């Protein structure tokens, strides 16, 4: 990377996230002015958006090629008081917490106290949500049975397709006007509401055009004062770009990037959408501009690289908006999950990897930034070169890119009713979530704690942590004669809590639709314009609501241990089991040892536990899949945790898999930490026993040390491992190449790292099985390997 990029990258890395109340202040000014009261809610929201873009500070950093920040400076992060009005206590926590903190200065605190809180308190959507949900929902939420994604962040979860590379915002406005003209005020009772939505979209579209215009003027001013001739020319070029896009379709590579970036800023300024927003299939969208630029001599490979690197830094400058409470615990990270998709297939089903795919992978490898995240879609048609290139980046221990199975993604989307073309143009976003890019609103609504449901079942409807009865009385487990009696009780309890979650979701979906429409985002997702409906109200072509199951390994191993020891082997009675759990194994070391060491475990390609895995999967699927949401779409499942497995573990007592009270649950569909002892092929076989194609995404992590991947042969064999998993319809796999620090932890806590495989000279072995001196040697080697 050149000197300019190095400087911008360093600036981004060094900026500490802080809170900026610029957005909150402007929004409050707008709503206090009374302007909002004279118009419909959608139009008011659009005018508020326009007001923000008209008045927010224009930030242009020295040497930048792509301009625009969400806040007044890199990593200055806005708040969204209309969604969640932070208390002063929240600010205190955000400022002082050890991890994922945001600096809050005195002036900010005072403004929050004097201006923001007095106006928004009781009006925020969060306040409305907690006022509307019922006692049952609240009890389950407080017990940690599920989380709620939409209580302080907006339902975003969508990715852009290729439309902005063909159309300018003036084209969008033309389309909206066509929709307005087509409204049937005689036959369609929704026509007046639709007109309001469409008018709001026009306001929002002009707002972005005007915002770019402010940059064009500012850049021209900067150019006038610039002494360096090269930079002066650059500034004038940038001014010309901002005068062209987004009003008109982009013509050059540079324009395309700047256009996307303005759109991105629009989406994340309008609302604090989950999973930020994302350009999606970047190697497809930008390819025509790249080829044209090279052909007509306006672009070189070097310049392309520089522009992309500059673009990358813009993402890293926008940490995920501050989260508090349970939401902070379930997603405790600055990452805002912009997941760049590379590879995959085109709309005809042909391999889509191209020269720009490889160039983008170079950029990913060189930038090594937290954001944006990146992934490579591997279809059965993808060349090995692509897979091997991705693995060669993964082996550097940076955790990116992750690998996805295009063929599975397409089948998942088609099963849910998407057209084959929309499916092929889709991909995965966020962590692993499947989506029809540019056409779907696919909302994650909350994590679901499967293990907690078992704990409540084992206590006949009572949460043992609080003694409160929050579930159904499904029977005293001591009286169960067979494992199937227990399982039936668990299944009823599961259905009960899913019902509560879905009821709550429907209420919350309506609150968003009514109070916080998203006219700007609606411009971008088909068919909001054609339908005259807002993104938050079912305007998208496809509307999916997900409930994310967490701790599949923990629930499987826990149920397996009960079946094995209580019902099959009769090693202990149910009453004895409950006693060992309720005392967190105190005085029951032997029993715990038996649960840990002498019980079949998920992740070893053993049908005994894996049959239970399948049963849990089917029960969860049946409870959720296909039930209607309020936006014309359906509820679906996926299986991923972000960081919720830690939070969920903290509210669950000891479990029959030997897990102590309060310890983290297993993550994604990965086995319980240390339970898989038969190597990676066994893990993949076990994980493939659930039907990934009926989910909207699953998450599997595998740990390796760099030595496993230190040769071409090692990379090729790992590639085969991935291909075989994808043949079995596995959705996603990520290789966590461990660091020396992890190895040191494994030395101290071997039980938790029993699955860690390391390369030892000519072959591989479990790290914890090695003698201390050899472990030390591998630690030294690992440290060297990562230099």
């Amino acid at each position, binding site marked *: 990377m050149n000197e300019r990029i190095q400087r911008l990258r360093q600036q981004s890395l060094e900026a500490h996230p802080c809170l900026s109340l610029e957005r909150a202040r402007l929004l409050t000014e707008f709503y206090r002015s009374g302007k909002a009261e004279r118009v419909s809610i959608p139009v008011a929201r659009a005018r508020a958006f326009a007001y923000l873009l008209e008045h927010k500070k224009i930030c242009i950093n020295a040497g930048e090629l792509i301009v625009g920040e969400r806040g007044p400076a890199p990593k200055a992060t806005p708040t969204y008081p209309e969604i969640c009005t932070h208390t002063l206590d929240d600010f205190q926590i955000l400022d002082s917490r050890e991890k994922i903190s945001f600096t809050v200065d005195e002036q900010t605190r005072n403004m929050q106290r004097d201006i923001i809180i007095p106006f928004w308190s009781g009006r925020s959507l969060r306040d409305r949500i907690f006022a509307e949900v019922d006692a049952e929902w609240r009890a389950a939420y407080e017990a940690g049975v599920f989380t709620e994604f939409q209580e302080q962040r907006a339902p975003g979860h969508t990715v852009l397709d290729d439309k902005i590379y063909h159309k300018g915002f003036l084209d969008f406005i033309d389309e909206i006007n066509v929709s307005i003209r087509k409204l049937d005020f005689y036959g369609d009772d929704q026509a007046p509401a639709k007109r309001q939505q469409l008018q709001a979209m026009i306001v929002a579209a002009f707002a972005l055009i005007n915002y770019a215009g402010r940059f064009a003027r500012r850049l021209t001013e900067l150019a006038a004062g610039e002494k360096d001739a090269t930079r002066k020319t650059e500034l004038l070029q940038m001014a010309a770009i901002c005068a062209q896009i987004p009003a008109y379709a982009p013509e050059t590579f540079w324009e395309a990037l700047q256009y996307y970036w303005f759109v991105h800023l629009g989406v994340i300024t309008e609302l604090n959408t989950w999973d930020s927003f994302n350009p999606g299939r970047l190697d497809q969208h930008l390819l025509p501009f790249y080829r044209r630029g090279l052909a007509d001599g306006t672009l070189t490979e070097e310049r392309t690289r520089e522009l992309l690197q500059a673009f990358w830094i813009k993402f890293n400058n926008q940490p995920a908006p501050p989260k508090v409470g349970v939401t902070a615990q379930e997603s405790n990270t600055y990452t805002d999950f912009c997941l760049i998709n590379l590879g995959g297939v085109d709309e005809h089903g042909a391999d889509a990897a191209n020269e720009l795919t490889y160039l983008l992978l170079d950029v990913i490898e060189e930038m090594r930034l937290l954001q944006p995240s990146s992934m490579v879609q591997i279809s059965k048609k993808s060349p090995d070169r692509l897979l091997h290139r991705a693995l060669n980046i993964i082996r550097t221990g940076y955790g990116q890119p992750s690998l996805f199975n295009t063929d599975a993604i397409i089948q998942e989307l088609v099963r849910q009713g998407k057209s084959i073309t929309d499916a092929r143009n889709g991909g995965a976003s966020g962590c692993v979530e499947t989506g029809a890019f540019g056409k779907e609103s696919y909302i994650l609504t909350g994590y679901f704690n499967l293990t907690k449901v078992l704990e409540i079942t084992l206590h006949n409807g009572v949460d043992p942590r609080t003694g409160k009865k929050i579930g159904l009385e499904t029977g005293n487990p001591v009286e169960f004669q067979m494992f199937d009696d227990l399982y039936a009780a668990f299944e009823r309890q599961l259905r009960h809590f899913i019902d509560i979650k879905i009821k709550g979701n429907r209420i919350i979906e309506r609150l968003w639709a009514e109070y916080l429409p998203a006219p700007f985002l609606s411009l971008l997702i088909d068919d909001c314009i054609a339908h005259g409906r807002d993104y938050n109200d079912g305007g998208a072509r496809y509307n999916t609501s997900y409930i994310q199951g967490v701790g599949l390994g923990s629930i499987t191993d826990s149920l397996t241990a009960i079946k094995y020891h209580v019902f099959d082997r009769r090693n202990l009675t149910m009453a004895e089991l409950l006693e060992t759990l309720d005392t967190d194994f105190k005085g029951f070391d032997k029993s715990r040892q038996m649960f840990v060491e002498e019980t079949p475990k998920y992740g070893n390609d053993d049908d005994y536990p894996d049959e239970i895995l399948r049963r849990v999967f089917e029960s969860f699927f049946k409870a959720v899949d296909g039930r209607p949401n309020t936006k014309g779409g359906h509820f679906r499942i996926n299986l991923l945790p972000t960081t919720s497995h830690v939070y969920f573990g903290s509210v669950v007592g000891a479990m029959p898999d030997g897990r102590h009270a309060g310890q983290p649950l297993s993550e994604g569909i990965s086995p319980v930490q240390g339970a898989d002892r038969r*190597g990676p092929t066994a893990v993949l*076989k076990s994980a493939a026993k659930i039907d990934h194609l009926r989910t909207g995404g699953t998450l599997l992590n595998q740990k390796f040390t760099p030595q496993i991947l230190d040769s071409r042969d090692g990379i090729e*064999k790992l590639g085969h491992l991935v291909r075989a998993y994808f043949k079995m319809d596995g959705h996603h796999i990520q290789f966590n190449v461990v660091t020396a620090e992890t190895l040191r932890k494994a030395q101290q806590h071997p039980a938790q790292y029993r699955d860690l*495989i390391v390369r030892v000279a*000519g072959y*591989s072995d479990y790290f914890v099985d090695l003698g201390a001196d*050899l472990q030390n040697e591998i630690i030294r080697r690992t440290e060297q390997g990562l230099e």
Partner: protein
Amino acid sequence: MPPTGTIFDIKKYAIHDGPGIRTTVFFKGCPLDCWWCHNPESRHTGVERIEVRSRIHGADREIVKEEIIGREVTIKEVMTEVLKDVIFYDQSGGGVTFSGGEPLHQIDFLTALLQACKDHHIHTAVDTSGCAPPEDFARINGLVDLYLYDLKLMDEQIHVKLTGASNQLILENLSILAQHDLDIQVRVPLIPGITDTEENLDAILAYLDRLNKVNEVCLLPYNVLGENKRRKFNLPQRLEPRQTQSKDMLEVCAGRFRARGYLVHVGG
């Protein structure tokens, strides 16, 4: 009644024991007694009980645990495990490797397993010390896709001293195998100062040149894991502790073979 056998491990995702992703079945029992043996659990035929001493991190006391090494298994039990990973073999051009110990030491069991693999169209490799009766090789030749054939020391006297047996039978077997149309990869464990000497490597090269059949050689860098394991099994430490070869040293060894037209892998 199909034969049973004694094994001490079945390792999946074995990526250093032949082409592709493999499952390696480790047989128990070996006619040799190499001073550097890195699989001491394979030495004796039959199931063993040993005492393992370990120290819990940060604690003073030593924990003594009895460990059972090896288990008697049926063909069906082994094949159940082997067949679980067929999708990985098919994808990667892998298969099963029978290693040990010396797999030919349990010839009936080995033959039956090889036949079972062939019935399932699975690629087979046999990792052998070569120290077995020629007629045993004759029994399995038609069922083996690849031999991983160990050559350690060319000097017979040193071979006797450090492995407990002469190398005559080993060399004879290899020359017989070389007359058949079989894939053979020669593996040389590089024991610092013993097998990695210029003299020994040149002798191996001269021998391979005369055979004029083997063109793939695998050099196995010294494995310090063996020292660790021998301690665990309370076996005598007859070799002074030594370090694994440096990258440069390995390159020198590999270069010798490459210069004579051999395809060389380092590290399996």
